């Protein structure tokens, strides 16, 4: 493949055509701040935080997230002027933001907080009208507090572009613009799947998961990377563990087959882990009662019964039903057991959960 070379902050960067300035810079280890950017989504260019200077461009400032890198481009990402613009943008955002990082669910995991930290904005120069929306709690899973919304459009876009659901869009214009559902219906009256993708992309605390509220912020939890056990896809997830209990699930960006996306089950279906009804040992029915047993005893019983049935009525008297929650490899082994060991083609799986 052809390569292009450009100069970013004095460093010669070689990249593949089609990459944006932001991506090319990242490849060279240069971090450009962003807010409305999410690698899972199409470029949007709304927050203006990633503006960079490109030599020979009329107006001078271009959004790195949405501008393709080009041969011989000369880009600067961190000039005095750019820092000034970024500061102003952060100040403007904070001038209409409830200053409540103390209790905010997203503190420590908030891109606005990170920007304010990096640019040292404590109190914005500008004061004026602020929004006072009521927090929307119209379902047990997702809470929306649009006072914290920065209008990056990430929720709108992820729901449409990635989920293909399109629950949200913006209503109103200018200062009054706000994302929302059609006619502000409750999420439960929209096609929402409660996948939480919008939660995962929201850079601030405007959209949060209700089940994990108040249960631990990013620095209080241990993140355990694991593979989602719900289906065979193998999405990577991070379990947020506090005091030995899972309090939330997130997905690492651009890692594994899910690339940071996951479905409602992967994200919210962790209640069973600590549930009192959960089986923690095999049970064997004795005199009509299920009693705890060892794996040895339980599997031995299954093997005996299968052998008996096969001997008395032939292999097709037995059927194998596997689970969609097993991996492909496990399901492969399972059908091997049915076909090669027992000798029946009666094998299926519950391709639904």
């Amino acid at each position, binding site marked *: 493949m052809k390569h292009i070379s450009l100069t970013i902050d004095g460093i010669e960067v070689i990249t593949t055509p089609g990459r944006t300035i932001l991506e090319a810079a990242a490849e060279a280890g240069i971090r450009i701040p962003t807010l409305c950017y999410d690698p899972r989504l199409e*470029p*949007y*260019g*709304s*927050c*203006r*935080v990633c*503006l960079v200077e490109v030599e020979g461009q009329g*107006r*001078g*400032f*271009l*959004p790195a997230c*949405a*501008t*393709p890198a080009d041969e011989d481009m000369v880009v600067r990402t961190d000039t005095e*002027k750019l820092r*000034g*613009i970024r500061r*102003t*943008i952060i100040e*403007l*955002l904070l*001038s*209409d933001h409830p200053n409540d990082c103390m209790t905010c669910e997203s503190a420590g995991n908030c891109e606005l907080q990170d920007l304010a930290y990096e640019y040292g904005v404590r109190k914005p*120069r*500008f004061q*004026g*009208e602020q929004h006072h929306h009521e927090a929307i709690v119209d379902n047990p899973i997702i809470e929306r507090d649009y006072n914290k919304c*920065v*209008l990056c*459009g990430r929720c709108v876009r992820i729901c449409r572009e990635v989920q293909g659901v399109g629950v949200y*869009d*913006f209503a*109103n*214009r*200018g*200062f*009054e*613009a706000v994302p929302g559902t059609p006619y502000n219906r409750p999420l439960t009256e929209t096609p929402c799947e409660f996948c939480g993708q919008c939660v995962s992309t929201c850079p601030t605390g405007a959209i949060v998961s209700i089940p994990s509220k108040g249960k631990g912020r990013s620095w209080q939890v241990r993140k355990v990377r694991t593979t989602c056990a719900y289906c065979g896809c193998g999405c990577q997830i991070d379990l947020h563990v506090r005091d030995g209990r899972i309090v939330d699930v997130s997905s690492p960006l651009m890692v594994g087959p899910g690339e940071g996306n996951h479905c409602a089950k992967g994200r919210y279906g962790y209640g069973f882990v600590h549930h009192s009804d959960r089986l923690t040992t095999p049970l064997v029915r004795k005199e009509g009662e299920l009693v705890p047993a060892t794996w040895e005893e339980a599997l031995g019983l299954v093997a005996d019964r299968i052998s008996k049935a096969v001997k008395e009525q032939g292999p097709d008297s037995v059927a194998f039903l596997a689970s969609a929650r097993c991996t492909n490899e496990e399901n492969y082994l399972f059908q091997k057991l049915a076909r090669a060991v027992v000798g029946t083609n009666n094998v299926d799986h519950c391709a639904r959960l």
Partner: protein
Amino acid sequence: MARIETPADLEQYRLQLREKFGKYQYAVSVCGGTGCRAYDCINVFETLREIIDKKDMSHTVNLRLTGCQGFCEMGPLMFIHKNGIFYVRISPEAVERIVESSILGDEVVEELLYKSPADGRRIVHQQEIPFYNKQRRFLLAMNRDIDPLNIDDYIAKGGYGSLAWALFESSSEEIIDIIERAGLRGRGGAGFPTGRKWRIARQAPSPDGIKYVICNADEGDPGAYMDRSLLEGNPHQVIEGMTIGAYAIGASEGYVYVRHEYPLAVHHLLEALDQAREKGLLGKNILGSGLDFDIKVSVGGGAFVCGEETGLIASIEGKRGMPRPRPPYPANYGLWGRPTNINNVETWQNVPLILQMGADEYAKIGTEKSKGTKIFSLVGKINNTGLVEVPMGITLREIVYEIGGGIPRGKAFKAVQTGGPSGGCIPAHLLDIPVDFERLQEVGSMMGSGGMIVMDENTCMVDIARYFMEFLTHESCGKCVPCRLGTKRMLEILTKICDGQGTNENLEALESLAADIKASSLCALGGTSPNPVLTTLRYFRDEYEEHIVNKRCPAGICQALITLRIDPDTCTGCGACLKICPVEAISGEKKQPHSIDPEVCIRCKLCISRCPKEAIYTE
């Protein structure tokens, strides 16, 4: 004759039409533009028709209800072709006399002629009226002479001749060369060279060969109505221009995006499209050339920002009208992801004109870098409001004082705002600059789509900046941070200053915000939104300082900073003010000087408008 199959057919048809129109003894045009409609010109026209019918003269008088003829201040207007008599402010009752004297005869009805406010002289011919005299109406002239609902009028005047020439005598490349050599630049705001834009769209690869042309008729600038008037008055010239453009760039489909507040323009356009299709001038195999091209009309979503080209495209696609970052430009990646060339109504209308005149002739009009004419809507504190078409390079002074007739009631000129809501305010000492794209930008304003608002000495420049900022804050789509929140914060600061609560730090914040918003907004709405503030700060900084330091509004406009007083020497004690005051702030004996209690007064200024002696003033 139904379909016109060849250029020769077109010529023949034209000759037939000319012969047919030549048979009429008289031709009369009544202006049916939006302004005149507000003055009930329809009633004038209907009365005229009734009288003509009653006299059984409909075969000898060719009556036309035309598009806007520009002199909106003076409507309803009537033009009698055979003798060039031009009447203004006609009432239905006057029509009978006009018919008898000036249509059947050659007599002039004196009191219906335009009266020069300068010397009271009555002027018979349109061209001699100062308002028209300095104009060069290349585009608007047709508005007077054709009925927009009748394609025959346009064809008889040479219409679609440029298209026939383009399709049969010229190549796509040549057309682009001509437009480039003519020096045509976009009339929608930015002044981008049209030929260059066409060339980019022509060269851009399309995944399936489909390309589009779009006519931007969103015209959101408050007070601007030239695009509306062109579309209402002469829709075929837009269609012809777009078809030539489609041929030049290789497009097969066009859209006209009209704002939904323009029902008459939509109606005339749809009618014109039908007639053009019927005649074979649009659709499949146009004039037998093999070119297939058709135009759809998309009615706008109602936001100012939908006039921005990427917002407009999103709107046509059925999405929320919000701009997106460019590049990629529409010429490469436009409507439905295909190369798309988008031009303004006035730009498109220039295209047939250029082919007809030839690039070199056309390029003789205007300045070195700005060619042709530009239509301005001249409004505000000016004697002659209306649509004016002037050659580029004319000075602002000529427009304001000669065409516009100066400032009413002998007031002093203070500033003229050009370029729509986000243009700049140009002060008196710059009145002699030539109007072209570069010069307007140098002084901090812009051409925009041609709004021109004149302000007199009673205008507060801080209040004006606040007013435009309010419009832009309201119209910001909300997508990008600097525009959404920056305009809001600027508006709040300006309001504070107008309310007498401004500080010097506010002024600094205003200036720094303005610079950052300009540099960082996504589209030109935000990018140009600080212009009114920046230019008023540049030229009228003392007014800001008066508001901040001395808590005074020198123009006597900002309510919080003024006191109304009655001059006891002038007041006759007639009591008119006392009666109208809604809060009973005025007291005084009959025939004795009255006075206003500043504690009670809400500064609504109703009393000022009522006082027959002009005894009430602000301070």
